[in-house]
């Protein structure tokens, strides 16, 4: 018998009832992250059936998707700054959590933020856990060697009521990433290159394990950026084996184990990496030693090229439709395309290292007059840390807006939108049509490339602007 993969070990450890030919497995969930958008109907269903929450202690709630990114002193402010439906949704979430004994990191909490930023920050995200959330970017938590995946609202109800999900075991896909990343090339560029290589459906039905020397060299925030976009390749989840970097990150976090429990947890985590003879259903390799900063040109994250390249040529109908929507011509260089908006934020790129990257380009420079730039920290913690380091001043002095934590312009639910026709260079994860506002055109890039483009007023290569 061959050895087990990281995924297989975490899966095996959570099977309550094994799957059969006729029935899926009952899989136990260790951590349920919740937010205001995908939970109200789940609570409605539980209420109508007279069911209670099985493990409120394993459930964590926050407000991120439809929350405004201007300061909210009290809930009354919501009625001024938010649309009535968004304000009502937020109140519903607060109320549902209060009535059911669920920990809510809401307004006034030092720990509020994007659900995939605060889980790791609190130390709630840990190796070997099963973690779900009604949000496809739950794959982010796989950076810790957890099995994290997005679920729908019906399944949110299943977890609230039973702490379990019905699941068929997915396939496994190993992605081996080798080579030293060149200067100015980041984890965001790596994951965009991977999606470009395997396609937006390349991971469907699979859990990815990212492996190799490049992955080992990344810090936790960069690993989160990689795992975050696993869903953009269609994968259920993306995982990275826990190691010293993981353990060091978690040590001392508020919800991480302490004392003897910490020692026991570390011993358990050390046993999680895939065995040397583990088999995967599929393997893909990518060499990143010559990789350039990547940007998308179309309307899905697989439509991506090096920033120094031109828009590719294809006669595929969906490809042509994408170029028409983006108002870009095949064969035209990406560099120099006029930019209207730059967004630094989202669960992909809103952590301290991302803000450091953006600030390193903006320090002593100005955002082009034609550009509106928003910098939105992923959490209150990130916001405080950035302000303590003076990064907010760097952004403001450059002419960017420094806002409160939330999902913001990643999906434009809270009023932070790009206008019809505007081109937005964004550090988020989806460049779908209208994702950032009706008719808005999104170009996905790293925080370095986004900041360089903000300064230039056109899509720009960050490498010449890197500090010495």
């Amino acid at each position: 018998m061959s050895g087990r993969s990281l995924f297989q070990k975490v899966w095996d450890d959570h099977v309550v009832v094994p799957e059969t030919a006729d029935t899926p497995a009952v899989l136990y969930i260790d951590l349920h992250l919740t937010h205001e958008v995908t939970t109200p109907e789940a609570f409605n269903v539980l209420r109508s059936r007279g069911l209670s929450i099985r493990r409120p202690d394993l459930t964590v709630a926050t407000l991120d998707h439809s929350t405004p990114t201007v300061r909210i002193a009290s809930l009354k402010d919501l009625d001024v700054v938010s649309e009535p439906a968004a304000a009502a949704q937020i109140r519903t979430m607060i109320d549902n959590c209060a009535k059911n004994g669920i920990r809510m990191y809401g307004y006034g909490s030092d720990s509020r933020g994007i659900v995939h930023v605060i889980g790791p920050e609190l130390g709630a995200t840990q190796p070997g856990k099963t973690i779900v959330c009604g949000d496809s970017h739950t794959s982010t938590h796989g950076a810790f060697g957890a099995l994290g995946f997005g679920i729908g609202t019906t399944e949110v109800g299943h977890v609230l009521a039973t702490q379990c999900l019905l699941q068929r075991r997915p396939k496994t896909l190993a992605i081996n990433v080798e080579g030293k990343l060149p200067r100015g090339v980041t984890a965001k560029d790596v994951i965009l290159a991977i999606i470009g290589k395997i396609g937006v459906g390349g991971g469907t039905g699979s859990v990815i394990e990212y492996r190799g020397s490049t992955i080992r060299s990344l810090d936790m925030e960069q690993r989160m950026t990689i795992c975050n976009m696993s869903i953009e390749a269609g994968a259920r989840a993306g995982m990275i084996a826990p190691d010293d970097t993981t353990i060091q990150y978690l040590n001392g976090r508020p919800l991480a184990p302490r004392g003897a429990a910490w020692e026991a947890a570390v011993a358990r985590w050390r046993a999680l990496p895939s065995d040397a003879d583990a088999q995967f259903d599929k393997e893909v390799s990518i060499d990143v030693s010559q990789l350039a900063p990547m940007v998308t040109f179309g309307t899905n994250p697989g439509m991506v090229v090096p920033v120094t390249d031109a828009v590719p040529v294809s006669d595929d109908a969906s490809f042509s439709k994408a170029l028409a929507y983006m108002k870009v011509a095949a064969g035209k260089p990406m560099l120099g395309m006029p930019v209207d908006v730059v967004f630094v934020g989202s669960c992909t790129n809103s952590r301290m290292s991302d803000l450091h990257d953006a600030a390193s380009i903006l320090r002593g420079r100005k955002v082009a007059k034609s550009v509106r730039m928003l910098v939105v920290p992923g959490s209150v913690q990130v916001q405080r840390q950035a302000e303590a380091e003076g990064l907010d001043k760097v952004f403001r002095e450059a002419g960017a807006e420094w806002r409160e934590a939330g999902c913001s312009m990643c999906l434009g639910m809270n009023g932070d939108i790009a206008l019809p026709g505007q081109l937005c260079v964004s550090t988020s994860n989806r460049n779908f049509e209208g994702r950032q506002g009706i008719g808005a055109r999104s170009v996905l890039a790293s925080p370095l490339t986004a900041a360089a483009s903000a300064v230039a007023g056109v899509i720009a290569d960050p490498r010449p602007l890197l500090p010495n």
Partner: protein
Amino acid sequence: MEKTDIVRSRTVVMPGTDIDTDQIVPARFLTTTTRKGLGKALFADWRYDKDGKPKADFILNTPAAAGCRILVAGNNFGCGSSREHAPWALIDFGIQAVISTGIADIFRSNSLKNGLVPVIVDQATHGWLLANPGVEVTIDVASCELRLPDGRAVGFPLDGFSKYCLLNGVDQLGYLLHQSDAIARFESERAWKP
């Protein structure tokens, strides 16, 4: 969830690949706190002009699409966000099945929990359906077959459990609640506690 055994309808065809859930329901409609009434938000940015009037050339606004309950879509339909609002909107609009060569995982899972039948077919069958919009086809959940007008029957994958739930209109929460003893045992016996 309603029982679903046979879906018989003319098809409406959207050949584009990678149609994502942000197209199926744009995020600005997600501030709702119920699943009801999302049909009007279905494909909103493709379906209406900037004044909110239906665009005559969008397929779902054409007379040929009226009453169609089966959507034939390009590969990787439903990719992107986990929003269950996507199948809710399709169902509220009147769609009961989606046929494609590939359907994204979370969308597929959400569909099965709401009685929307995901039908994955081979390239040749898909190509024929794309080339012949509006044909009447039958989806038979019990036999996992798509029947074409010329009498051909094409199988599609559907696990036994999902099939049982569709045919009987059973939602999976009941099954899970039935496992509560096993869940309690697992919680008390596992070697470490989260």
